[in-house]
């Protein structure tokens, strides 16, 4: 089949034209980069679809998938914790280009935004050629991605209130790929939600730790370390980013620091 560069004029047109070997292109920082693992024959440009609005919708903030990281940083309605996650992408030039939808759809374990968004139970508005727009939890999009990988992300919805959130990114230099990106939120009276991406390992919710944090009044770093040491929710590997021992230690310290931060309610 000939390669096609399609500039979709409507969402309907975009989803109708989507096939297994076409990709949607947003900011282009992932598809066009060196050694991109996105393979495609044709592309569908989203630039004319108007998916770059940030709107208040009841208890949620609805963020168009085509919004760039920098747009989020500059928007007064976007909560500080999400702005901070956007700033994990150090390069301003790249932040001018990269979109929230693209960062989610890439599903990279070193994603700048996914841990933070999952930790607030973010929802996605999707559409495909068989189904008008519909909503799912971001966590489901990640866990069952095969079911959704051909869908177009229209928007991301985050709750406007009710969550105290802290996130941290660990990398060699600011512009290096992260080997740990972790986020934790506190919601309700004492419920905690954790989500972390570990380079070369994938994502994990660390449910056992969430339960521990919710059940115990005082949690020490030793408690966190014990959970991480014994976790089977994710596998750790020795790689260019460090040893298993180092990663487990640093993840424990990071999650404990995030716990202290959200428990204190500073954000």
């Amino acid at each position, binding site marked *: 089949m000939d390669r096609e560069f399609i500039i979709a004029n409507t969402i309907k047109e975009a989803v109708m034209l989507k096939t297994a070997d076409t990709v949607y292109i947003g900011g282009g920082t992932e598809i066009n*980069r060196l050694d991109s693992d996105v393979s495609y024959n044709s592309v569908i*440009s989203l630039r004319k679809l108007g998916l770059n609005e940030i709107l208040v919708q009841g208890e949620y903030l609805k963020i168009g998938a085509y919004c760039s990281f920098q747009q989020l940083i500059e928007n007064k309605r976007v909560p500080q914790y999400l702005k901070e996650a956007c700033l994990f992408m*150090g390069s301003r030039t790249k932040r*001018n280009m990269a979109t929230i939808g693209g960062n989610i759809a890439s599903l990279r374990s070193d994603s700048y935004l996914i841990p933070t968004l999952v930790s607030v139970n973010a929802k996605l508005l999707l559409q495909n050629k068989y189904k008008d727009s519909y909503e799912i939890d971001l966590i489901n999009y990640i866990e069952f991605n095969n079911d959704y990988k051909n869908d177009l992300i229209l928007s991301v919805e985050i709750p406007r209130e009710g969550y105290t959130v802290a996130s941290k990114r660990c990398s060699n230099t600011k*512009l290096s790929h992260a080997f740990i990106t972790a986020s934790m939120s506190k919601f309700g009276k004492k419920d905690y939600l954790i989500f972390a991406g570990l380079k070369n390992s994938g994502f994990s919710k660390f449910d056992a730790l969430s339960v521990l944090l919710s059940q115990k009044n005082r949690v020490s770093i030793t408690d966190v370390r014990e959970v991480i040491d014994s976790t089977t929710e994710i596998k750790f590997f020795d790689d260019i980013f460090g040893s298993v021992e180092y990663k487990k230690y640093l993840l424990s*310290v990071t999650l404990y620091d995030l716990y202290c931060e959200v428990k204190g309610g500073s954000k």
Partner: protein
Amino acid sequence: MKLSLVINGLFKQFDVDPFMKLRDFLSGNGFVSVRDSDDSEGFCGSDTVLLNGIPVYSNLVMVGELDGCEILTAEGLSDSAELTVVQQAMVDAGIVQSAYNSPAASLILFWLLEKNPNPSKADIKDALSGIFVRDTGYENYYLAVKLAKDRLAGLDSQPVAPSFREELKYVGKPIGKIDSAQLVRGEKSYVEDFVDPHTCYLAVLRSPYASAYINSIDISAAEKLDGVVKVFTAFNTPETYYMQAGQGNPEPSPYDRCLFNKKVRHVGDRVAAVVATTYEIAKKACDLIHVDYEVLPAVFTVDQAMQPGAPLVHNGIVEYISGAPNDLSTYNQKAGDSREGKVIYQFPIHADIRKNIAASNHGSIGNVEKAFKEADAVVDRVYQTSQIQHTPLEPHVCFSKMEGGRLVIYASTQVPYHVRRICALVTGLSENKIHVIKPKVGGGYGSKQDILVEDLCAYAAYATGKPVYSRNTREEEFIANSTRHPMKIHVKMSGKKNGMITGILMEVWANTGPYGNHCLTVPMNSCSKTLPLFKCPNMKYNLKVYYTNTPPAGAYQGYGTPKGNYALMMAMAELAQALKVDYKKMVDINHVEEGYVLDILKGLGEGRDGKVVPVGSCGLSAAIEKGCSMINWGKKEHSKDPDWKIGKGFAMVMQGSGLPGLDHSEAIIKLESDGSVIVNSGGADIGTGLDTIHAKIVAETLLLPMNLITVNSGDTDSCAFDTGAYASSGTFFSGNATVDAVNKLKEMILDEASHQLDEPRSNLSIVEPGVVVSSESDNRLTYAELSHYACSGAGGGQLIAHGSFVTEASSVPYGAHFAQVAVNKKTGEVKVQKFYAIQDAGTPINPELAQCQMYGAVMKSIGHSLYEDMKLNSKGVCLNANMTDYGVPTIFEAPEDFKCELVDVNDQYGPFGAKSISEIACNGAAPAIGIAIHDAVGVWVRSWPMTPEKILREMGKIK
């Protein structure tokens, strides 16, 4: 696809492939300022343009997205010959040096100030966060913004840098680099800008194995591919042995390779090369080549290489041009498979390839064993440095063609004459048949002292008769270029309770990789540019350099010194701790001062006997005192956050100014018929301002304005010989050659004036602006009048002076570097809060450029100390051969408080008292930061990079 665009204010329509990257589109349409440093990694920012008024990476944009968009490139910033305010501010601040992404930076700063006329430091940092700067660091970018902001507001600007030598008009004054306007505007400057239409492209098939014999290569399928011109392998190219280091001939490096070898010795080694009409066809043809390998065991560290029975990297026939040992024939009876090839030495460098030893050396003064025995304390430590890549923004690149029966080579090189000599060897041509042209160089840092792509590109053009262009990918820069030699350094140091150092033993085991470029001299520098800092009477060094199957090592700014200095300064700090002596007191007691005779140098020549000399001009004490005062040495700082601990450290530094007795520079200066001057310098300006130094020297000597002086350099046809820009030789050697030439020209002018005016020579002198005057009459003769007559047919002909410079004198720059770090005791993170580099450069001829080179060198060294490390797997594959994973520091890693300052010392040998500047600033960060980390959290991290994981391990937080 039809596309309408407004580019630099002009509406244009195009019919384009919508998948084409915007950078390729712009470059193909003549907007050469938009360059590529990272093969679309989205890291370096050389490809930045403004798209609808916002900075984007053009490599990450497909043109199909752009219908109706507006694009601004650096070419569109000004439509007059004048620089914009921002561009002029960048020039004045000294940050336009190798300048490969200066046009991109000028766009970003233009955008910043348009958006925000009064940006904060944080705003500037954010704007520059998408640009990687390797040559000048980021500090003077803040200055450039301030200058531009003030000028746009109509305010007077501050001086951009200190001035030196009141009595001089140009030398020692920050008045800009003579080629900076061309560079910041993004005009044609670099090799890639001179490639002819219809040029062929060269791609290299590289080894997937760290060590293997090549049994056979089937190139038939590749040759059949449409567009393929020629496929080269070891089976159809000459078996001519050479080496790629650009060093003085005869070189203290072994000739241990051919264009292609029948044994590959590292992952990334050359197996074959394809010349084709496009790069894509050449790459496709590489994929069609079938190679039958016999895979061999490999070694990757000096510890592995030195084991008895270790796999041998070279095991062929050994030959000597001179000084062959008596038992050579017996030695050669042990040679292995014929595919091992040969190793040819110009003279003995104490190698033994049957033990993987590429070179060795040793020497001593006094008696270290006795010193150790009688000491109050002895420290005995091993330090390890890592494999580091230069990462110049412009990768290695070459364009070669046959023209009029001659081979013309456009090379991005530090050593045009070595390029010519080595390409002559490879092609079999005589040097008069080769013309090397060095355009601007987009960053070298030592890697372009080596002839890494020119040999093959030139041979390909010669053998095919076609113009051939070769450009390394960024991955090739990592795996197939040169790198900093990893070194394991054992230091044993003894002292007395009063802080006196009584004995130093330094053992260096260096890893040269598969080939021996600089294999003797880099490790020797780890001793010869460090031990002479000490007045210690008992010193001994012993170095061995091993071949391994890692990516190759070679020259890197600072040569071996940053590694040796890291080990020695750390050991001294550890000794101070053992003796319970204040570190500064120990430094004060033990460092050399002017006049101290350096006996240790007697064995530390570059493959020859060294020369014992006294310390010359020396700003070491001044630098130490100034830095200690600036950083409040001795005062403990505390963080408000209990997790962060603060520590301080400092280190002495020294280097050289070229290689006395080895380096050689020449210059030819012509007085043109209108009284202007053209300088043809053999020296190679690689962006550091060497051409400006020549211009200033001529202006100062002939009392001519700078705009009447043109410098042409690095062209082997029009200029005379120069060993090249390495070993910190440019200012001292090439500059002194210009001093010699211009002094001769001045004498010729006065002689000619005497003849033309019919006045005694003793009556005459010169005054500004280029006029000969008489002290006894009203006679005046402008250079224009003088030269016009000389060239009129009645005169004596054009005045042309030739100067040269060789010396046995050493002009050593000194300094001290200071760091204050904060270390997170929970995570091991390190932040460099303060860094002060205080140096003696003699008379800094270009003070603002000198300071920026210091900032750049320190930033590199902070990278080497804390972040950068080429990581190989167990098969020798580099796992992080890209900018993002490798870990170069950017503006985020720059110290919060960063100052590079010069202490005023006038040198007796340098041109107008100048010494070198470029390399020495690489030598201090590692020990200063290492000592500061210890001061903060009490642990010594004895290997590069000093990562959080290593700190945590030393602190006992992890096993």
